[in-house]
């Protein structure tokens, strides 16, 4: 087992470097001149020769004239020490800038994930057990509608319904402007603002997951060992939630863990529409403003999350399914 993990980690490191190289080169292909952008405000106040000199100087200082491989070396050296460079837009280290949106995204996503799993798993199981009942049919229709609707439609409709018409929740933002509370008061205010995005995110992910759980569960309930479990005299609850669910979990586990990993990556659409300061919006803003150090850092972060996530998914397979455990 340890040997397997060690092998996988080595492989991950290899992929990390290849990917970082590719991404760095790609970002360098994008036209743009950070030195000129930096000096742009000073242009009118300086004489052309002085400006040109200052510009050359800055290019050198920023390392813009170095061969690309040297630039990569400098950058990756910094990255490995946790230094992703400066944001050209905010004039602050990328690492300091990324903290707030990442915190927000994780906070929102943990709630959304727990809500969605907490609803869709029991609902999927119930539907599978009571297959073709009225409840199952209703849920089937609702989930296919939820699954088919794009998230921005759900967002617009719920903003109109709950924020504009009913006025239950604020339209956008994360806190009341100029709010000065701490502790539980602050938390409640934040939850009031986040309620609508959370509802939308939950609804958006409910459909697919419920259908997936239902299908896996129906498959498991059909197996011979379920009959054996009943023949033993086990109560129906034990048969369903222990014997069947443990087997239905095998195909579902990828999705569940995938969800938990995705709590780090924000939703572009939802964060834009509700004006939430999360990872998705942060990344989008960086790209729009040609803030490539920030964009590159976010991409690198997503890549590491994906690499670690895949390892966790593979390990979790062995955890739930003894047949794929590597030590046998």
């Amino acid at each position, binding site marked *: 087992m340890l040997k397997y993990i060690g092998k996988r980690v080595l492989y991950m490191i290899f992929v990390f470097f290849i990917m970082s190289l590719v991404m760095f080169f790609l970002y360098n292909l994008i036209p743009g001149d950070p030195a000129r952008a930096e000096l742009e405000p000073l242009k009118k106040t300086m004489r052309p020769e002085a400006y040109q000199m200052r510009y050359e100087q800055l290019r050198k200082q920023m390392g813009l004239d170095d061969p690309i491989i040297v630039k990569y070396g400098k950058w990756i050296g910094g990255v490995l020490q946790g230094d992703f460079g400066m944001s050209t837009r905010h004039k602050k280290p990328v690492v300091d800038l990324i903290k707030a949106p990442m915190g927000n995204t994780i906070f929102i996503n943990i709630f959304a994930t727990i809500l969605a799993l907490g609803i869709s798993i029991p609902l999927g199981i119930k539907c599978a057990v009571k297959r073709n009942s009225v409840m199952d049919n209703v849920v089937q229709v609702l989930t296919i509608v939820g699954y088919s609707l794009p998230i921005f439609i759900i967002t617009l409709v719920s903003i109109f319904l709950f924020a504009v018409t009913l006025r239950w929740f604020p339209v956008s933002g994360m806190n009341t402007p100029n709010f000065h509370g701490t502790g539980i008061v602050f938390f409640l205010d934040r939850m009031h603002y986040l309620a609508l995005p959370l509802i939308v995110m939950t609804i958006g992910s409910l459909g697919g997951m419920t259908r997936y759980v239902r299908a896996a569960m129906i498959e498991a309930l059909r197996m*011979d*060992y379920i009959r054996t479990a*009943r*023949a033993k005299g086990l*109560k129906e609850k034990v048969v369903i939630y222990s014997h069947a669910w443990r087997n239905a979990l095998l195909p579902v586990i990828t999705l569940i863990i995938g969800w938990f990993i995705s709590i780090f990556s924000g939703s572009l659409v939802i964060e834009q529409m509700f004006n939430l300061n999360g990872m998705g919006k942060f990344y989008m803003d960086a790209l729009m403003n040609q803030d490539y150090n920030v964009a590159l850092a976010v991409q690198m972060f997503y890549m590491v999350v994906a690499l670690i996530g895949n390892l966790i998914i593979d390990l979790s397979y062995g955890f739930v399914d003894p*047949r794929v455990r590597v030590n046998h």
Partner: protein
Amino acid sequence: MALLELRDLHTFFTTKKGIIKAVNGVSYEVEAGKTLGVVGESGSGKSVSAMSIIKLLDGNGYINSGEVIFDGKDLADVSIKDMTKIRGNDISVIFQEPMTSLNPVFTVERQVSEPFIIHQRMSKKAAAKKVVEMLRQVNIPNPEAVAKQYPHQLSGGMRQRVMIAMALACKPKLLIADEPTTALDVTIQAQILKLMNALKKENGTSILFITHDLGVINEMADDVAVMYCGQVVEMAPSRVIFGKENNYSHPYTEGLMYSIPRLDTPTGVRLEAIPGAVPHPLDLPKGCKFAPRCKYATDKCRNEEPALVEVEKGHPIRCFYPEKGVRANGK
């Protein structure tokens, strides 16, 4: 008194195309400490009649009428909830497919210990000890190690032994064996049958043995019930059915007998098979259900349904012409 008695049992399945009468008026008895062999082709209702006893039917199946008297009590009226106290405790089942009948994600120990924990309220630890004991009883080598293994690490024969250990855990009065050796190699089959016979003698368990293999019945059963299209067509002690001086039989039983290859058949003689196939349960023939495939069938057979009539004591047959000599010489 018989341990189990089915009286005129009707088990139906509702489908979109209509009601399937899988078991249509079946009566048979299993004596205490004896083995009843139920034979028949696929779709004859032999498994469904047995599963009706503990109500282990698919979602759309139900007992329409009839009685299932087990130990003096009618199980047909018992709710599913109360049935869980009987399943695995008084009545256990061994299924046909050892490959898929064990749960792949639980260890042998966990699966075999469940009957102990639910029916005898044992602690997990005490149950685990009993598991090893049970595994040893069914001749599994190195039971301590096997208990910690998962089903995919065991061979088919071993898995069936585990199934038997699980079924016999609470020393049931009745063991329903639903084609327990069909999916196994012949050598393993012989071992499993021997094991079942030994355990039956040891514990005094009655066995309801379902199979389509008359050879296996001959080896296992004290009594035999032959089923066709959801009905019993012949019933007799197995020494009568397999006996040389048996004067009466149902043509279907006769056909089954002839279709077994024998060592003493002269060379060049073709193996006789029953022509045709079991009719679809939604499209049963008028008259005797076996008439379309029967070489002795007359117009009477095709129009009237014969009743189950005792031709000699303890030997009922559902046929107008049960006497072998008579029907062979023409009507």
